[in-house]
């Protein structure tokens, strides 16, 4: 018995050794990551509960949902989905269930087969009476790893929009200013009528590294598509002007500015897009 225990211990020890070896090898990146292509930028993979629920007719768990921000942001403001429909700011953090969609919440708020957009019915999300022919509709969203042809092609859809740097390669701000996109900000029965938001003044964010120009932060630009609650206090948690310090490192980790400006809003690649104010 004792001998057996010792042998077991030795085996575990060696397994442990191999694992530490592996982790040692993984320290540090050191290589350049590939940038997502314009049509891939803003893509979110939503993968919840795949073991728990899948339509019987599919005979296999439904694939994770591939959500591209670009089509939705051309038509709706950030606020509409991230405040009024209560989608979290992090992928898969909302924990959307098919039953939620069926009841007319989350995706089902609009994707209910009834809402009309541009004289077209918005296709219904997860339906309750699932038929074999509905599979085609399921894979419109549950499409990870499936070769599904999207109804809208990114490059044809964005052809006329003004070019921008990086990300989707589109200047969304300019697109709206020029009236090429008119994102909807109000959904009857979901949104709340409110007073026009008056944006606080623009301010400087001092760069933390010597010799790097300061950031000019514009509240005005951010409130075009957002309400206060999107950022305050959830994302800029505990950030009080002039007290809390955060740096690029936090942003690159997806905190603060990085919550949006890493995966959806224009990426933090060209420093000078924000660091524009000369050091005094």
């Amino acid at each position, binding site marked *: 018995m004792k001998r057996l225990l010792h042998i077991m211990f030795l085996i575990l020890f060696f397994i442990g050794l191999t694992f530490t070896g592996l982790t040692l090898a993984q320290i540090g990146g050191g290589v350049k990551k590939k940038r997502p292509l314009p049509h891939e930028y803003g893509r979110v993979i939503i993968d919840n509960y795949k073991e728990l629920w899948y339509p019987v007719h599919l005979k296999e768990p439904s694939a994770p949902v591939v959500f591209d921000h670009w089509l939705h942001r051309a038509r709706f403001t950030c606020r509409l989905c991230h405040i009024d*429909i209560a989608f979290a700011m992090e992928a898969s953090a909302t924990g959307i269930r098919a*039953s939620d969609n069926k*009841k007319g919440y*989350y995706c089902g708020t609009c994707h209910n087969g009834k809402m009309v957009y541009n004289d077209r019915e918005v296709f219904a999300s997860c339906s309750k009476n699932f038929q074999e022919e509905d599979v085609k509709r399921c894979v419109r969203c549950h499409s990870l790893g499936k070769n599904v042809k999207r109804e809208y092609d990114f490059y044809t859809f964005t052809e006329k929009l003004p070019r921008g740097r990086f990300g989707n390669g589109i200047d969304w701000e300019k697109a709206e200013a020029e009236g090429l996109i008119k994102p909807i900000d109000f959904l009857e029965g979901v949104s*709340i009528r409110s007073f026009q938001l008056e944006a*606080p003044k623009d301010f400087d964010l001092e760069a933390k590294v010597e010799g790097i120009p300061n950031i000019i932060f514009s509240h005005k630009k951010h409130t075009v598509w957002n309400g206060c609650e999107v950022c305050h206090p959830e994302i800029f948690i505990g950030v*009080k002007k002039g007290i809390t310090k955060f740096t690029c490192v936090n942003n690159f980790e997806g905190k603060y500015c990085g919550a949006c400006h890493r995966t959806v809003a224009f990426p933090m690649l060209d420093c000078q897009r924000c660091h524009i104010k000369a050091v005094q």
Partner: protein
Amino acid sequence: MKWFKALLIALITMYISLWGVPYFLEEKGNLFFPLRSYAENDWRVEFNDICSKTNTAMSLTKEELTSLIERCDKLKATIETLDETPKKVYLKRLQMCRDMFVFVIENIEKKEENKP
């Protein structure tokens, strides 16, 4: 008139059995059963009223904000009695409004500290 009453009762029973049951199962309204009961609609009105103030929160006084936060807490109890999905959605939305009011109050307090 007796047959008329009987017919009416029969019709009502039929109606409930036809629409009422699915209504309760699916939480869906129809012409005769408008979306959710009155009590539920009340909380929606209250919710809309509270959360419509986030955009103007910065111009409110500390007292007004405190009373808004109290109203949030009161409403939270009602929302917690809702079904799973609306509960989840509206708790999150309410929390966002409440956090926003707290955030503004903290900012006001900070300003007061700076100007003794």
